[in-house]
């Protein structure tokens, strides 16, 4: 076995750098002559701007520019999704300028941008700006935003409705509900999440007047989208006028996919002032200015026949978009979320209606799973409710309705085609791993101590997604290294390691000699970035295709070097050889020879190659999460005691990294289910949970060990057999946790609780049921 082989838990290539403090995150970069930008943000959720007086700010020592909306002769930030409503009209896309024009629509909206020699001077100047606001009533709560007589965020969007979209088979679904033996109904809340990557956003722009090009260093999940949006929609100078460099990124979770106002502002100011301009978000700003996640209220209905077989699913999902539309926002609850409503079960029909709603809040967009956790949460909560109503064992009800492996490929009513899946096999393994059968003893033992113990499960299915192509380029560098240029963007997932493993597997070179190059749109002409758990299977296919071309190039070169016909050359373990002989040449030596000959003017082709792989199918990772909790009915405190995940993410290239991804996803799901509550003041529209002192991120002592078992059912639609693993942990965990809490509270008569199940909520539910 090689040191960097596939299916091994290879220790990460990126770790020594990051562990020694030698990582380079955007804010770590200082350029000569660099200036600092600070954003003045709206303190009001809704207001008209009557006047802005920047004179005192502009007079502050060290200040070079004080920009307001009136200064920006550029386009607004675009939304790249345009939905068609049920009535055939289009969604309403409101203006989304980088700096407010004559009105602000959420607390934290950018109003002015101050650029100064030091960040302190810029801050002092921002405080000296006087804005005359005419404060208006606001609406921040999704539950009331559609009510009559609430404040309207946009005049052009009556009723605060952004879109009214549908999918599925409405008539057939209604007919199945009419003939159903039983219908279970449930309304669930998917609470609003502050993404809170530990590294906040930052942008450092410089402009070269001679070439009329920007270089923007910023933490993204792929710079190519930004290059395109900045060049086309915002500045109109063309994508080629932007070079986006993404340094090390400290977590993204979807939130760093998008173009943000501050990236536009640093570029604008850098061009105007002729000096580099850096903006770094502080944490308080991040709470107000990063896109939030989730925020749906969903009515779900499940129709069953007399045998407990699922007939149809119907949902009406109300989804908060915030005050404007971030790049992908309307896509998340619609195509992304509704697409997986069938999960692993055999429905005859599905119908989903999604209403996008404007509120006076920061825009909402993708957060780890992006629509699919919300859909899975609805389905798995509904099934537990139905099992209870019908007095059928909840595990048995699921098993009875799972699609079997003999049905693969399976087309769902929402049009997804599952290539593979052994749902019952994975399910049974999960129950065994979690000690499901012996649980009642543990419940009784806890009850004797005055604690309510519960066990809950969720079987999730996720549909990974993203760009339809991906590119790789392999170059044999002069210093003897093999450089692999990729179009995805790691924000902590360990891509550098997994891609080295793939390269070593195909080219047989030592792993220490492979370098993964990412994050520069000038050296990498195209890339789909990282999102939707797409990277390994998308970039993996591109690396495989490129490696195959490298080997073909090598075969031709070797046939010359070894003086044999190309068909007689075999490639094995990093060496080209004449079949049946011991005559051969190593790939690194051959590449070096070819490069040297080409440099000397000989007609020698290098081994270098680039290929773009077409990603024809996405993947459907799935698995079972089982949570065991204890609730103290006196305090409402929920303690998570055991957690296990049995996952089918296809072939695991690096099981250690896969498990790490699942751990992190589970922790984020735990945060959503139990801790993280985003609260706006209903009158002022202020974000009350605006810091880590108010907004509860999971801490080490909130969580137990998380057991992750991998059952590999190879994906049939990519040659690696891999399925995307990055989001899965966050998809399965919220329903497993809430189902466990409800199982614990069922003896007390509690039938429903919404996320997050904070002690106050649990305590109140227990008291209300008594």
């Amino acid at each position: 076995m090689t040191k960097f082989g596939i299916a091994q838990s290879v220790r990460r290539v990126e770790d020594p750098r990051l562990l020694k403090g030698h990582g380079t995150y955007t804010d770590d970069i200082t350029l000569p002559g660099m200036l600092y930008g600070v954003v003045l943000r709206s303190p009001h959720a809704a207001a008209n701007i009557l006047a802005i007086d920047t004179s005192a700010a502009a007079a502050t020592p060290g200040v070079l520019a004080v920009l307001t909306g009136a200064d920006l002769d550029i386009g607004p930030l675009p939304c790249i999704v345009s939905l068609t409503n049920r009535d055939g009209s289009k969604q309403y896309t409101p203006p989304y300028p980088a700096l407010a024009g004559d009105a602000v629509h959420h607390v934290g909206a950018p109003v002015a941008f101050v650029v100064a020699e030091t960040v302190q001077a810029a801050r002092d100047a921002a405080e000296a700006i006087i804005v005359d606001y005419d404060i208006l009533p606001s609406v921040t709560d999704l539950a009331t935003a559609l009510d009559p007589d609430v404040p309207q965020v946009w005049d052009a969007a009556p009723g605060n409705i952004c879109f009214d979209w549908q999918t599925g088979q409405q008539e057939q679904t209604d007919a199945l509900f009419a003939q159903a033996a039983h219908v279970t109904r449930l309304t669930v809340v998917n609470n609003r999440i502050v993404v809170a990557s530990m590294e906040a956003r930052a942008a450092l722009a410089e402009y070269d007047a001679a070439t009329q090009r920007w270089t923007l260093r910023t933490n993204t999940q792929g710079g190519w989208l930004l290059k395109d949006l900045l060049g086309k929609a915002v500045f109109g100078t063309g994508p080629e006028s932007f070079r986006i460099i993404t340094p090390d990124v400290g977590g993204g979770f979807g939130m760093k996919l998008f173009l943000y106002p501050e990236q536009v502002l640093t570029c604008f100011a850098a061009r105007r002032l002729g000096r580099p301009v850096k903006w770094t978000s502080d944490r308080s700003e991040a709470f107000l200015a990063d896109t939030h996640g989730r925020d749906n209220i969903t009515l779900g209905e499940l129709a069953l026949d007399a045998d407990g077989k699922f007939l149809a699913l119907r949902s009406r999902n109300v989804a908060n978009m915030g005050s404007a539309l971030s790049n992908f926002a309307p896509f998340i609850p619609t195509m992304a979320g509704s697409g997986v409503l069938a999960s692993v079960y055999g429905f005859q029909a599905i119908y989903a209606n999604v209403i996008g709603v404007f509120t006076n809040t920061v825009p909402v967009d993708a957060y780890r799973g992006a629509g699919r956790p919300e859909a899975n949460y609805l389905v798995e909560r509904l099934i537990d409710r139905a099992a209870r109503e019908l007095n059928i064992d909840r595990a048995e009800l699921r098993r009875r309705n799972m699609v079997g492996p003999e049905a693969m490929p399976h087309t769902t009513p929402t049009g997804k085609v599952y290539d593979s899946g052994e749902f019952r096999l994975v399910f049974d393994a999960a129950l065994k791993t979690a000690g499901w059968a012996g649980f009642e003893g543990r419940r009784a033992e806890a009850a004797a101590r005055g604690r309510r113990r519960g066990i809950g499960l969720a079987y999730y299915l996720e549909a990974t997604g993203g760009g339809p192509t991906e590119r790789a380029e392999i170059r044999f560098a002069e210093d003897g290294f093999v450089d692999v240029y990729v179009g995805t963007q790691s924000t902590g997932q360990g891509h550098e390691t997994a891609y080295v493993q793939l390269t070593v597997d195909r080219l047989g070179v030592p792993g220490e000699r492979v370098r993964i190059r990412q994050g520069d749109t000038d050296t990498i002409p195209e890339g789909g970035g990282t999102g939707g758990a797409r990277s390994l299977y998308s970039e993996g296919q591109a690396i495989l295709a490129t490696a195959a071309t490298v080997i073909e190039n090598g075969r031709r070169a070797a046939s010359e070097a070894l003086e044999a016909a190309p068909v007689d050359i075999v490639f094995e373990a990093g060496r080209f050889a004449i079949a049946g002989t011991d005559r051969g040449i190593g790939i690194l030596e051959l590449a070096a020879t070819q490069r040297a000959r080409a440099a000397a003017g000989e007609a020698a082709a290098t081994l270098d190659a680039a290929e773009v792989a077409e990603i024809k199918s996405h993947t459907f990772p799935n698995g079972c999460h089982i949570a065991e909790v204890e609730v103290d009915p006196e305090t409402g405190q929920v303690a998570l005691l055991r957690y296990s995940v049995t996952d089918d993410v296809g072939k695991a290239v690096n099981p250690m990294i896969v498990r790490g991804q699942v751990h992190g996803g589970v922790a984020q799901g735990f945060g959503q289910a139990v801790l993280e509550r985003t609260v706006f003041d209903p009158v002022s529209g202020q974000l009350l949970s605006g810091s880590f002192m108010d907004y509860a991120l999971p801490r080490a002592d909130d969580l137990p060990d998380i057991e992750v078992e991998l059952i590999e059912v190879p994906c049939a639609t990519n040659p690696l057999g891999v399925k995307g693993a990055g989001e899965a942990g966050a998809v399965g965990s919220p329903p497993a946790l809430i189902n466990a809490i409800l199982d614990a509270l069922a003896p007390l008569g509690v039938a429903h609780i919404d996320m997050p199940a904070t002690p106050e909520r649990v305590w109140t539910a227990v008291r209300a049921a008594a």
Partner: protein
Amino acid sequence: MPQVSLTVNGKHATVEVEARTLLVELLRGNLGLTGTHVGCDTSQCGACVVHVDGQSVKSCTMLAVQADGASVTTIEGLAAADGTLHPMQAMFREFHALQCGFCTPGMVMSAIDLVRSHPEGLTEAQIRHGLEGNLCRCTGYHNIVKAIAAAWPLMQDRQPAIAAE
């Protein structure tokens, strides 16, 4: 402007700073030691933890002038001159205790102080409790806890009690 003299990773430095300058700003800005990170502005996340005279300190919560005369160790000062990782760094790598790496410097500095302050041994519960001042959004802490447990005996010059995958 006030002058601050201090020793950072064994090297002496004297810098002039505005009185309101935080220790983390001195380290990152004046000294260019960007391994120490800033993850919040309410002293909650612990990404900025360094050692001041051997004690872990959130460097965003200490004025630079308060560190006058002190000896400061940052993440850059942990590995040996030949690049050999400190046992805590090595176990973080061995147990995959970092993903994006942003919380990692503070996490490692806190973990070292946690181990040093518990020569009698560390239970899993003590480790989890001891990390209360450090936030990580990537790992779910599972592997961080394992790494610290494995580093404890190494830092007592013993063999690790548990093996990585």
